């Protein structure tokens, strides 16, 4: 099967940043995010080359990325738990206002598995059933993790330690 190079290049250009952000939201690490995005795109290209163009390449590559993240988690559960406790070494912050940055940091501070559920629900806009399928979980587990993640976020945002979010527009 031939891969249409210009079509793939355009696909790459339009999807790469989004995949990196998805990876970053899942892992909290820009380096791991690039690794996941590159790996997923390489796998997509070879699938395209050997089997043919997937019907929906964007969904396909996301599925690969999430599965890859999942298998990494499975294989390195101890490390992942440790990462979740200590937090990522270096955060990649999205452009935005301070409030968004605080929320982004709070999301990054969630335990890995809770973060994965939230990211797929809100970044990928997936239903709970789809998230369950992607992560290989029961729907009930997805619901409880989402609930715990949201509760934890509310907790964190309610009592910030460094509180740029509380800035107001008043004069000095």
């Amino acid at each position: 099967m031939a891969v249409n190079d210009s079509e793939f290049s355009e696909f790459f250009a339009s999807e790469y940043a989004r995949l990196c952000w998805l990876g970053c939201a899942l892992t909290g690490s820009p380096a791991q995010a690039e690794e996941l995005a590159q790996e997923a795109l390489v796998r997509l290209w070879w699938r395209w080359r050997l089997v043919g163009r997937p019907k929906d390449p964007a969904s396909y590559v996301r599925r690969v990325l999430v599965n890859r993240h999942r298998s990494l988690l499975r294989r390195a559960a101890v490390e992942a738990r440790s990462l979740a406790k200590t937090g990522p070494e270096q955060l990649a912050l999205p452009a935005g206002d301070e409030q968004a940055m605080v929320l982004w940091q709070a999301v990054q501070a969630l335990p890995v598995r809770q973060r994965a559920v939230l990211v797929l629900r809100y970044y990928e806009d997936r239903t709970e059933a789809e998230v369950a399928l992607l992560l290989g979980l029961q729907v009930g587990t997805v619901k409880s993790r989402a609930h715990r993640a949201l509760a934890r976020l509310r907790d964190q945002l309610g009592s910030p330690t460094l509180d740029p979010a509380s800035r107001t527009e008043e004069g000095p």
Partner: protein
Amino acid sequence: MSLHQDLSNLFERIQDTPWPGEHQAFDEFLRRRRRRGQVLAGGVVLALAVVMGAALVLPGLWSNDVDQVVPITPSGTPRDIAEQGFQLAAPAGWKIARKMTGPLPAFSSKTIDMGVELKPQSQTPSGATITVTTDAHEPDWQGASRRPDGRPFQLRAGSGGRDVGQYAIQWPGYCRRDPTTILTWTCDGPRQARTLLVTGYATGDAEARQQVQQAMQDIAMSVQPITNALPPPPIPTDRLLQVTALLGKGGQGPTAWVVWLEARGGKPGFTVRFPHATPEPVSHWQELEPSSLNAQGTSSILQCTYWEPDRGAIIVGLARADTTTIQIELNKQPLLHVPVFGRERSLPVVAYASPRLSSALVEVNRITAVDATGRMLGTENRQGRAPCNLPGIPP
């Protein structure tokens, strides 16, 4: 707004945010694709050796798609040569065939990008090549033509043979490699002379040479400055003198802080106030010297929170408007990354504040302003700790 809505808004915003280093990603992808092709091919060879059916499947994997994975950027896709400060896309009918690399001066073990080589997408014009490189000298620009962005350029006619000619464009540098880390840049030095050279070669007839010269012209007019070729933004002192503006407030309890721009005695500056310090609020005003801010990137106040029982320290300051992150280097501590705030106010400066540092004894080595592309805009050398024991400060 609900947390659900906040999350949706946050992730929606992320969707459209560029990813740093995106332009180099396709080359990395090509390298990885090649490696995976070799792994796949190796796996197939092994499997087929077992089943003795190699001839049917192997050609498919070994076809030219496993390829000559010299990075080739698709036509029209911009390529960044960060080291030389330019970004260009191949003109129609041309492709960027390879990056030209060379040793970093004085560090011959490290290779850096020196430029690019372009080739026609088809085999015509015959033997045609265009290189885009830089040179650390500048010709006399007297009488030179100007690009739409005002940069002077000259066209030198070809000397015959393969030489089609050369465009020389003024391309000064504003940053240099940090001599200690080599991997990072500092942008606080003077403007350095540099010329961008677009050089054409062809072996064909006059028509072929004409085609190469047209492509050279397209490149010379469209190549864009990036990274070290972008000058630091001017800091309008007038604006700093006219404006009294809140930049932000944060922290909590006794270490809550407020920072605002404020001119005093005809001099620009900023004030940091800790309104809940005891027994009375603490304020500091610091003069802001625009050229110094441009050179050092930041102007900071290191405050000992001596009014707390377990006194700590907070670093608050202003930075150039193109700063997105502040890196604070503490002695024997991990590097601290702090986002700036106040960008939405479109002022000539932005502000930042560190989290409360748990010990006032921590030493601050350097404070560095970094822009969105990761360039170090300037470094403030501090080499000290918050003054907790100065006269007048309660013990």
